[in-house]
């Protein structure tokens, strides 16, 4: 690339801690956030309800306006006021946040209500609780499965076992469990030489690009569970693309981002994982690293849910310095120019049917892949519309939610069928499952296409 503009004008500013009064730090623990004041912004327009994919297919779910500002306003803090049990039907897609013209913290209200419901009202011995806990702690299952990937791949999708899981745990047998990779991303990363190797690759690139070899371009990669255990090719693509632009990558210690736990009201579990993630990321942020995620739900969790729900040291700084992988390059590099000059051939010279995950939409990223790859020679991309895929992480895995999940996804499946391409593309691993499940297409991540276009 000939563009020699080495210093990006973008400078992250300090997080917005400023002037707002901070009402709550005397609560015994942050599950008890009082969100009634959040209802102040609601002017009852119900834009959130029109954006809710669950309310569209399930009238037992009264919609985000009720679950959010209305419930919080009607609710009192005394124990007699229970959270309506329909909160468990919310899939935590967070589209309501994106809808509200008034800035009501809807998903924060939902997450908090769900946490309260699960901890105060849900029977901890119920099958539903146990099932949700297992689904929410995917990382634990994946960790064990990845030790014996081949066995796990067979066993997890073994018919009678799946029948039993549905009958005893309420995990739908309609879906195939994702395959575990033979070699995890972290195994690959370690074998490749870890951060040292990345540093030398980055320097080589800078040299090639005519940038100072000692420039401070460094990112901490939050790969998440799925890229590690199931799709290490996404993680590898991320590393190679970033190194191509001269970035040193580190892969710090990390746990689950917490996304599936928020969705299941398991806030204590989520906080435990978040504490590890924030601690390792904030150390790096202090040293000038930015955090980059390839999964849009992971970046969402770090940016929005953590500071909304937890009070952990350094959390604001991590949130303000976390980015999605393409977004970061778009802001800091001339990614558009690079893609415009590139060409892709071979395996990925395809027409892609792209679906923007809800959590990408929330971060304002729903159009970036389309915008970027529209100009790429050798490949095509078509947006399959703004509907939700319907799986919303663990939601679509629940036996009682499966049909609703597919009903939500129907619009996307139809648009995929209409789209020119027969390969799908999305940033979110569970949306990818749903896309594959509903269309039979193979699903790729934008980073894979970027790698094919830019990295030799």
């Amino acid at each position: 690339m000939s563009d020699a503009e080495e210093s990006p004008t973008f400078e992250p500013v300090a997080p917005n801690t400023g002037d707002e009064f901070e009402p709550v730090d005397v609560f015994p623990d942050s599950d008890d956030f009082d969100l009634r004041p959040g209802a102040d912004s609601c002017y009852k327009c119900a834009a959130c309800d029109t954006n809710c994919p669950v309310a569209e297919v399930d009238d037992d779910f009264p919609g985000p306006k009720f679950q959010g500002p209305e419930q919080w306003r009607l609710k009192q803090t005394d124990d007699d006021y229970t959270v309506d049990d329909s909160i468990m039907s919310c899939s935590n897609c967070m589209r309501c946040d994106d809808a509200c013209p008034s800035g009501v913290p809807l998903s924060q209200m939902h997450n908090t209500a769900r946490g309260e419901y699960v901890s105060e009202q849900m029977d901890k011995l119920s099958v539903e609780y146990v099932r949700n806990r297992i689904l929410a702690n995917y990382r634990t299952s994946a960790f064990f499965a990845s030790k014996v990937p081949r066995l796990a791949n067979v066993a997890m999708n073994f018919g009678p076992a799946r029948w039993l899981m549905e009958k005893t745990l309420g995990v739908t047998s309609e879906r195939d469990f994702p395959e575990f990779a033979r070699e995890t991303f972290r195994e690959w990363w370690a074998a490749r030489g870890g951060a040292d190797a990345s540093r030398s690759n980055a320097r080589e690139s800078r040299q090639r690009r005519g940038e100072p070899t000692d420039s401070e371009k460094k990112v901490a990669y939050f790969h998440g569970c799925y890229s590690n255990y199931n799709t290490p090719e996404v993680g590898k693509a991320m590393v190679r693309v970033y190194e191509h632009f001269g970035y040193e990558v580190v892969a710090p210690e990390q746990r689950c981002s917490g996304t599936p736990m928020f969705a299941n009201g398991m806030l204590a579990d989520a906080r435990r994982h978040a504490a590890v993630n924030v601690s390792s990321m904030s150390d790096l942020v202090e040293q000038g690293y930015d955090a980059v995620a390839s999964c849009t739900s992971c970046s969402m969790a770090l940016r929005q849910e953590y500071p909304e729900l937890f009070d952990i040291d350094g959390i604001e700084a991590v949130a303000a310095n976390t980015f999605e992988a393409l977004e970061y390059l778009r802001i800091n590099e001339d990614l558009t120019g690079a893609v415009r000059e590139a060409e892709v051939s071979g395996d990925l010279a395809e027409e892609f049917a792209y679906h923007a995950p809800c959590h990408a939409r929330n971060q304002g990223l729903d159009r970036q892949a389309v915008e970027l790859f529209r100009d790429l020679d050798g490949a095509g991309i078509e947006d399959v519309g703004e509907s939700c895929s319907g799986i919303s992480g663990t939601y679509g895995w629940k036996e009682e939610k499966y049909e609703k999940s597919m009903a939500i996804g129907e619009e996307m499946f139809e648009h995929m069928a209409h789209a020119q391409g027969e390969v799908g593309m999305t940033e979110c691993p569970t949306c990818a499952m749903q896309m594959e499940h509903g269309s039979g297409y193979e699903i790729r991540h934008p980073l894979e296409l970027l790698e094919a276009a830019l990295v030799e």
Partner: protein
Amino acid sequence: MAIESDVLVVGGGLAGLTSAITAAREGADVRLVSYKQSTLRHASGLVDLLGYTPDGEGPLTDPYEAMAALHDDHPYRTVGVETVREAMALFDEVTGYQGGHTDTNALLPTHGGTVKPTARYPPGAAAGVASDDRDMLLVGLESMTDFDAPHAAAHLDAAGVPFAVRGVTIQFPGDLRADAKVTRYAKQLDTNAEVAVRGRNRPVRDALAERVNPLLEGEERVGFPAVLGDDRADAVRAALAEKMGVDVFEVPSGPPSLPGLRLEDALFEALDESGARFETGNPVVDYEGDGAIERVFVEKYGTKIPISAAQYVLATGGLVGKGIESDREAVREPAFDCHVPHPADRYEWFDVDVFGDHAFAAFGVVTDATLRPLDGSGAPEFDNLRAAGGVLGGYDYAAEKSGAGVSIATGYAAGRNAAREVR
């Protein structure tokens, strides 16, 4: 700079979308950024140009004629009647709305049982126009408190409509909960879902028509609350019309408003086709530049991300859309801090009568002839910033029924002017 374009439109409502589509069609490289969903979802989906004069005279039959008599600072006067016509032509082309065959306003029934003057209406509302003398049956749904068909019918009758009108209330087939959302009804109808009726499964469109058919007394058109499908609204209406042997229409209501939502979708589709780029979800909170804007900053989770362009359009809406904000002391425009004239005493911001002459209704920026916002001394705030839609001041869109028209006309003019600057 990494993210840049010729024209940056801030705001994704009717004005912003019209502006971006127009600028892109003029050949500019356009980006639109919008924060949250627009107030189109609050609105009925009817597109009013001018229904009453600022003095309350009306309903006006010819909005264009009345525009010429508006005060000089009215946005319609700023852009001129010819531009309004061009803008409406663009709007007609990209949305498929009806009413463009005549300059004359139509009177459409509202969910409150009044009629109101409007210039354009979606195909779904077309069979409901009140100057059509065919008899009308209005059908309400028992759980839907926003629209009471017998009340609306009695009210329309009291307004002297030239046809007989009756209202009946039915239960929507199937077993939806009483608080089901409008999108739930629409989805059922879109997918023609099977619903249980007296123990038998029936496609919902059939079941709905069968429920209304015995109630028909020779009326030629039947109006429902605006829940008749979302993605496939035309097919839903056509199917019902066929099964009932009548014309079918929706009575617009809101919020939340499916007709508003459909309009928003149609405009975004046109935006995409125009080649403009857009991104949603994050607010523009700051800018750099003196005399001219060099770049704006979009805030994401405490980080400010720069976006730059040669020309900017401010289309962030009014008090409802949060393009204009206030506190106990003052009224302001938050994105660029443009001057917003307002009385210093907040007790002069309103009238004591609920439908009185409210100053707040006209809060917004004032502009020069090319729609550039002016500062307190009457000079342009920035060389390269134009304003359109609800953020403009000087007109009471609610009383005049002029909101949609002003947004389309000024959006069009701002987009065109901006694009011509970069040529």
